């Protein structure tokens, strides 16, 4: 029996993947990124339909519950994304400074 949460996850995954597909068609993301997103959303659908798969995978890593693995992986991913954002912002800040310096003049 399929739970309501499974249906929500599947619908969301399909929606999210369609967004990724549109981005890919507009060439806003590379094909590597597109494949990455495809893998992520397909695995989300698989796990939603057959929840046992997630515990199989997590058992392989020595973690008891699938949900735990999901939380661990998510946290790692979020940290990585924050790191990337931090560097991006830092670069943007340096560029702003260059512009400010360029337009500054002796009064």
């Amino acid at each position, binding site marked *: 029996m399929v739970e309501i949460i499974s249906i929500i996850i599947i619908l969301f995954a399909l929606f999210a993947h369609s967004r990724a597909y549109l981005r890919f068609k507009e060439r806003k993301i590379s094909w590597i990124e597109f494949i990455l997103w495809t893998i992520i959303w397909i695995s989300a659908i698989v796990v939603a339909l057959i929840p046992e798969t997630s515990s199989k995978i997590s058992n392989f890593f020595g973690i008891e519950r699938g949900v735990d693995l999901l939380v661990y992986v998510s946290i790692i991913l979020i940290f990585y994304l924050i*790191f990337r954002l*931090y*560097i991006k912002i*830092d670069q943007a*800040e*340096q560029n*702003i*400074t260059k512009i*400010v*310096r360029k*337009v*500054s*003049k*002796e*009064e």
Partner: protein
Amino acid sequence: MMDPLIIIPAFNEEKAIADVIKDLKSHDYHNILVIDDGSKDRTAEIAKENGAKVIKHIINRGQGAALQTGNEYAIKNNIEVIVHFDADGQFIAEDIKNMLEPLKEGYEIVLGSRFLGKKPINIPFEKKLILKGGRLFTKLFSNISLSDTHNGFRAISKSTLEKLKIKQDGMAHASEIIDLIKKNNLKYKEVPVTVIYSDYSISKGQGIFNSLRIAFKLIIRKLSN
């Protein structure tokens, strides 16, 4: 005798800047450049009224950014020697003479130190603790031992300036400069200077929390390079 360009980064320093410039002039330093780092008060006007050159950042970019603007001005205008000086009245112009001396002996950069000989005036305990931490951090981060790692008083020769490109816009530039000294193997010397702690200068200084933030910034930059 070399006539140094005194570079003073200033952000909202209308209360202190006039006295700082007057002190410099009374010691015969007339080549003064104030970098007004997007002040919202009358810092730039007051500096100009007192006879300093002023370059204005349209928005606040931080002390490191302001110093680099001054350094680039010096390079462009072929200035032989520059001095970094604070706008909040912590330093005294009398010390500049001693700071310039080692440059004549071939040192490439001279760093002011408040812990060599001259006693810092009214230094608060928290400040002492932060500076100790800064020393330890510098030892680990850049492998260089200085008595005072976070002192904004510096004298630098022109040839050195081109190797000292400050990329840390904020207060992390002090550590960055030391790191660049180590990287470029610059000949440096520490010289005792007086640092005066007034309620005003303390309010403008760095707290413990901010110091940790600065350390974090430096580490991330090192990791991402």
